[in-house]
């Protein structure tokens, strides 16, 4: 790695953008020893949350856990700045337990920015990057709006929603970035010049209301959990006072206002042409598409501790401002609402993720990586996860090492990147647990078991944390062994205990392990009849309990994973000529030739490639290998 500290124009890795993707990318690269620079249009908007003030939730919480297990920053920063935390889905099973926290938005930004500033090997610089520099299909650096050239061996695009940003409020349209920030209007042209295809996506955010104008007594109150479960595996507990969120509902009046003004919405009036996501429709969308639903939920969430701004989750809209006010004031508790920021939609340029390898490097431009919303995803966690991987792979590339590719059976991160890169997307992509085939294995409680050894190997997990991790794994497996070996004899005390938990009594001895398998018996409860139970930390106990209770299902899933891996490990040579394979249908041939999948497994997930095509491909590769071996 270069160590020319005197020269502030030459780096190993340059990251364009200091959003959630950029921050993880830059930190990972610098921590792996690369001289790194991270650029942002505005240093006061580092790690900004332009939309909802929370981190985590279903599948997204899993991503944060995984980022942390690999040595990323988001989980730690969230733990430091959260103001309410809840574990969702606790009744629906361990695969979908999901951690979600309200974040003090400003503190989060400050915390992340400071972390960047303190990071060795890293320069945080305010500048708009207007050009990427490419020679012979290899990226060589970037140029800023001030004309300065910065050289780099690898460049990572993490420009979020800024490229050619266009803000839409009703029938008012203007060029702009999120949160009143400037858009980045020049970089797109440079990307296009090097053959990068750009798509136009859209997303939106609801209004912010001043707390003083809200009547919370007309809303349902939602408190956080006690105790707080931290995101980071480095934190065992968090002691903090939490603030509540609130819930209100749309009314008949709301729906009437929306219906009457539909023609004035940007969405229905045809002003917005970008493709918006199906999963977070604007409120007018919801009312048109689900016409018989009487009411919709609207969550009212604090933006932070030292601000009176409240966020209206579930109420994003492309209506003009006068309609917005009317709509909001039709919600119980918001009759006198004072709007601080109006709802708006934003359109922006993003790349086609099909142009990327699984390492997040462009297929056609060596050394150029891309991560975050610019890849067609949506969400802070999705962005951070990609950023981390792009940062790691940029460094591995410079070192001449194999990229880190997590597959679909290893991590949600793997599912996310594989989906984007293999299937592409025609709307901002949001992570969901149902996108993961191996959900019972990809749990949030065992993210460390899945990924920390990898983080250690690439150097993002330090020695002491790794040692602690090993001890944790050891005590978990010891405890499972103990449960398997210890028998509880039948006794009045035991049967009374079982009766109390509506569990059938025993007449012969039973292993603790088998008792724990009963759905109605929790690990914690077992303590009462198990005097040898060690005093394990919460996170250890959770893994013990889930491993035992779901053993059969987990084993089955691991078997499926083995099958899956076989296909993933059948690599397709990079120089394969699809034109030369007889029997491939034309559509499949074109798709395969365009996307050049790395493995049979990846090929099989490309839309338009049928099982028969895969058979043909498999057989061709097999025959080719055999023939090659013979010569």
């Amino acid at each position, binding site marked *: 790695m270069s160590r020319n500290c005197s020269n502030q124009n030459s780096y190993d890795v340059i990251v364009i953008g200091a959003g959630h993707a950029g921050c993880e990318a830059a930190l990972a690269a610098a921590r792996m020893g690369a001289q790194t620079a991270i650029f942002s249009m505005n240093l006061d908007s580092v790690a900004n949350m332009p939309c909802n003030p929370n981190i985590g*939730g*279903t*599948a997204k919480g899993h991503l944060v856990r995984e980022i942390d297990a690999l040595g990323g920053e988001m989980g730690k920063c969230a733990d430091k700045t959260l103001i309410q935390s809840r574990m*969702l*889905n606790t*009744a*629906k*099973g*361990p*695969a*979908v337990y*999901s951690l979600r926290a309200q974040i003090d938005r400003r503190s989060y930004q400050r915390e992340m920015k400071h972390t960047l500033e303190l990071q060795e090997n890293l320069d945080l610089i305010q500048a708009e990057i207007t050009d990427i520099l490419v020679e012979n299909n290899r990226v060589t650096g970037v140029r800023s709006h001030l004309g300065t050239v910065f050289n780099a061996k690898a460049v990572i695009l993490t420009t979020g929603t800024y490229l050619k940003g266009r803000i839409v409020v009703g029938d008012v349209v203007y060029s702009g970035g999120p949160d009143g920030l400037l858009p980045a209007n020049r970089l797109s042209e440079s990307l296009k010049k090097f053959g990068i295809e750009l798509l136009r996506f859209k997303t939106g955010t609801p209004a912010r209301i001043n707390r003083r104008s809200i009547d919370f007594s007309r809303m349902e109150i939602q408190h956080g959990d006690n105790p707080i479960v931290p995101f980071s595996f480095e934190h065992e507990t968090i002691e903090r006072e939490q603030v509540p969120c609130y819930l209100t509902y749309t009314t008949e009046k709301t729906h009437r206002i929306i219906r009457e003004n539909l023609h004035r919405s940007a969405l229905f009036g045809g002003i917005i042409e970008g493709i918006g996501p199906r999963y977070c429709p604007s409120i007018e969308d919801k009312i048109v598409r689900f016409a018989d639903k009487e009411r919709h*939920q609207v*969550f009212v969430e604090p933006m932070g501790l030292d601000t009176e701004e409240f966020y209206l989750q579930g109420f994003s809209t492309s209506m003009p401002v006068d309609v917005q006010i009317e709509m909001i004031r039709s919600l119980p508790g918001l009759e006198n609402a004072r709007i601080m920021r109006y709802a708006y939609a934003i359109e922006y340029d993003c790349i086609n993720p099909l142009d990327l390898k699984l390492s997040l490097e462009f297929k056609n431009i060596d050394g150029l990586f891309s991560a975050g919303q610019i890849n067609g995803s949506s969400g802070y966690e999705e962005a951070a996860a990609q950023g981390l991987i792009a940062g790691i792979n940029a460094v591995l590339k410079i070192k001449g090492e194999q990229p880190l590719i997590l597959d679909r059976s290893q991590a949600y991160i793997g599912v996310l990147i594989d989906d984007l890169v293999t299937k592409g997307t025609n709307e901002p992509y949001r992570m*969901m*647990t*149902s996108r993961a085939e191996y*959900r*019972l294995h990809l749990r949030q409680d065992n993210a460390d078991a899945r990924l920390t050894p990898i983080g250690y190997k690439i150097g993002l997990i330090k020695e002491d944390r790794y040692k602690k991790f090993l001890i944790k794994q050891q005590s978990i497996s010891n405890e499972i062994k103990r449960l398997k070996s210890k028998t509880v004899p039948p006794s009045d005390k035991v049967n009374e205990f079982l009766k109390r938990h509506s569990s059938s009594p025993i007449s012969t001895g039973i292993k603790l392990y088998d008792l724990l398998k009963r*759905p*109605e018996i929790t690990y914690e409860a077992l303590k009462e009849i198990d005097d040898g139970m060690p005093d394990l930390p919460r996170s250890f106990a959770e893994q013990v309990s889930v491993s035992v209770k*779901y053993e059969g*299902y987990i084993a*089955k*899933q691991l078997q499926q994973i083995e*099958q899956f891996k*076989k*296909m993933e490990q*059948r690599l397709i040579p990079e120089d394969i000529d699809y034109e030369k394979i*007889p*029997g491939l249908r034309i559509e499949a041939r074109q798709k395969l030739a365009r996307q050049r999948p790395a493995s*049979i497994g990846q090929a*099989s997930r490309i839309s338009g490639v*049928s*099982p*028969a095509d*895969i*058979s*043909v491909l*498999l*057989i061709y590769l*097999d*025959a080719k290998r*055999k*023939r090659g071996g*013979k010569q």
Partner: protein
Amino acid sequence: MDGLLTDTIGAISTAVGNAGISIIRMSGPEAFSVASKIFRGKGNFYEYRSHTVHYGKIIDPDNNDVIDEVLITKMAAPRTYTREDTVEISCHGGYVTASRILDLLYRNGVRPAEPGEFTKRAFLNGRIDLAQAEAVMDIIASRTEKSSKVAVSQLEGRLSDKINSLRTRLVEMLASIEVNLDYPEYDFEEVAADTLSMKIRSVYDELKNLIEGFHYGKILREGMEVAIIGKPNAGKSSLLNRLSGRNRAIVTDIPGTTRDILEEYVNILGMPIKLIDTAGLRETENAVEKIGVNKAIEVMDSSDLILFILDANSGFEQEDADILEKVEKYREKTIFVVNKTDKKDEGKLNEIKERIPNVLEISVLEDSGINILEREIYQYVNKNNIDTDNQILVTNARHKKHLQLSLADLEKALAAIEAGMTMDVVSIDIKSAAENLGYITGHQVSEEVVANIFERFCIGK
């Protein structure tokens, strides 16, 4: 796909016991050298022209024993079915000689072919495409009009429509579970365990029906198996010949001539029927014949229908009593027939009728009663009132396997709900059930699919 294309494979390519002549086929780079080692004919095997037939003997090179007199066909690559060097040996008689020759091939470096492997090679060597390879199976299978009707409706997608609709229902269930898992903060209606159970059960029942139809589908596709049993000389082989209209089985006056199982496909009133002629079911010391008798008992067990042939000339003898005892178990699927009414002994025939009241009287020689027998056979097949024109039938073993796996998944899902498992777990089984249906309609990929497609193929064409 181990050993693909580098080794030589061999197999008997006529169905087991089929006909008086068996064909052994081998394909691969060593086919000619192995043939030259074991074949003694006029001139040098290597010098024979491609696509010519030669007469000679198969010799065991280890001890120079002559195994059989044969006709050998030499076919050089690439103008062969597999596009590889291919040798076909036609030998006398049934299974026994053929398997001795096959054994000899195996001892000389030929590997036993997997089911469908010849067709697989044809595909691998670019002779046919995958769709054609699958079609070969159906061409082989569609022996009569009725079964081709099923094949056609299969093609037109009635089966896949049905399976897709079941799959869609599972996917819908999944969606309503998933939405609650992925959007816990919203107030979507939770899927109640008992409603879910009910919905699963209804898909389960329909799947089960489909699977049950497989048996009938198999009858249509492969022919119903009808075993002809009876003491030696009752006229079993004669009846088989009559029904098939050809001179296939060896008909003699010497009891016990039919030593193997003979099979013949016939078309009875539009139904494909596989007639199986067994050796006489009598206690025997003769080793070869004993094999035949044991097989006959096996066949009785596996066949769909049994024709028990008695003799109006010889009457009810001890041997008939022995067979009657064995057939007792299968009475439900047995049609009793008394043959040779042209030469009947009135008293002996009456004796038979006393014991077996509804016995059907025929004379193969005079062709009397055969029509009635055919109708009986036809009615037996249709007695389940299966409407061939409207019923959706599963005829393909691979399809059946996935339907069964899917059914098993649903069973597990039901059990998980019953046990109070959480929805994240229940959904795994439902998803797996949907995926298994997806395998049939082509919604998914696994390396096994290729292997399985080929496993369905019978050896040879």
